[in-house]
């Protein structure tokens, strides 16, 4: 089965979406990520979607869900590298993703993650 790799970097988990997301892939990612967070006791999750060109409402919901579930498991989520077209689509769909932290690129996202973990 097709899966998106989840990499571990110290206390954080790194997910880079390099292929077009389809529904099953997003569901798998959600499941895998929940397992990995509990297995590694990660403090933060960084999701890089800079290669993602197209989103629909389902994928948007999945992104919100992933962020929500990792928050419950005490891991902060940062979404990085969203393309302008994707941002406009999500806004038009009414998915404002409240409570999801965002950053322009992986570098800034890592800084944000470290900063927020230190504060806790």
């Amino acid at each position, binding site marked *: 089965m097709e899966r998106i790799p989840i990499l571990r970097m110290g206390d954080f988990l790194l997910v880079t979406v390099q292929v077009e997301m389809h529904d099953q892939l997003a569901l798998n990612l959600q499941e895998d990520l929940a397992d990995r967070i509990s297995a590694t006791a990660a403090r933060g999750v960084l999701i890089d979607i800079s290669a993602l060109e197209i989103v629909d409402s389902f994928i948007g919901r999945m992104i919100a869900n992933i962020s929500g579930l990792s928050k419950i498991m005490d891991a902060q989520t940062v*979404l*990085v*590298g*969203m*393309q*302008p077209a*994707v*941002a*406009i689509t*999500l*806004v*038009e769909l009414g998915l*404002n*993703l409240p409570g999801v932290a*965002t*950053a*322009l*690129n992986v570098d*800034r*996202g890592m800084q944000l993650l470290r900063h927020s973990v230190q504060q806790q």
Partner: protein
Amino acid sequence: MSQMDQSIIDALSGQQSSIQAAWLANLEESGAARGVRGDELKKQTGDFLKLFSEGVAESGMDNLGAAGWAEAREFLEALSHSRALQGLDAQQTASFIFSLKRPLFDLFQRETSVDPATLTNHIAAVSELLDAMGLHTVRTFQKAREAVIKRQQEELLELSTPVVKLWDGVLALPMIGTLDSQRTQVVMESLLQRIVDTGSEIAIIDITGVPTVDTLVAQHLLKTVTAIRLMGADCIISGVRPQIAQTIVHLGLDLEGIVTKANLADAFALALRRSGLSVTKAS
């Protein structure tokens, strides 16, 4: 009356210079010559009369759509196109054709004085033909004008959304004019693209030049701000004038979660502070 008198056709080509003189005088009188140079007008009238007599000889006066009139039609299209670009109005353009009526009527009177019925027929035919030509001219003129307006609108849309860089990592977008869906879309796209290109973390939208803010405009602004946040940058809205602030409160609009500042300077100061920079006086 489908067959034109040979004598008329001969007279049309034979007396071109006298018709042209009468026509030019008429043009001068009606004001249609204003804004066009004398020698240019002389050339245009001369060329058209030549095409006109050729057209009559070839296809008669019944149908402007006939093949023999193709050159005359093209000439008129080019003429009204150039008039539109010169900024002349529709009346002046149409008068170019209508001023030709009188000289032609006079010519017919001179040439077919024998039979009043024939004369009336000829005059009716040429009058209808010239009316059709006038309408054709006005239609082309209008098309050309509409093309000019459309191009200008597009240029205005492009011009009115410049994204400027204020500092490293700080972008500003001064909005001028009414915000509608189409403009917001263009503004949003160009701003988001610039944020990606420059890696800027703070974007300032200045609405000093936006005359009114209603619920729709506020919704557009909210969308833009949300999209910017999703990309991972922050947005500040500046230039909220007192009247606009009052309108927003009156309408009960929810600008929760949006940072607003009264002017661009305040917004810029906040942006610098957030980037960890400060401005000090050089001693």
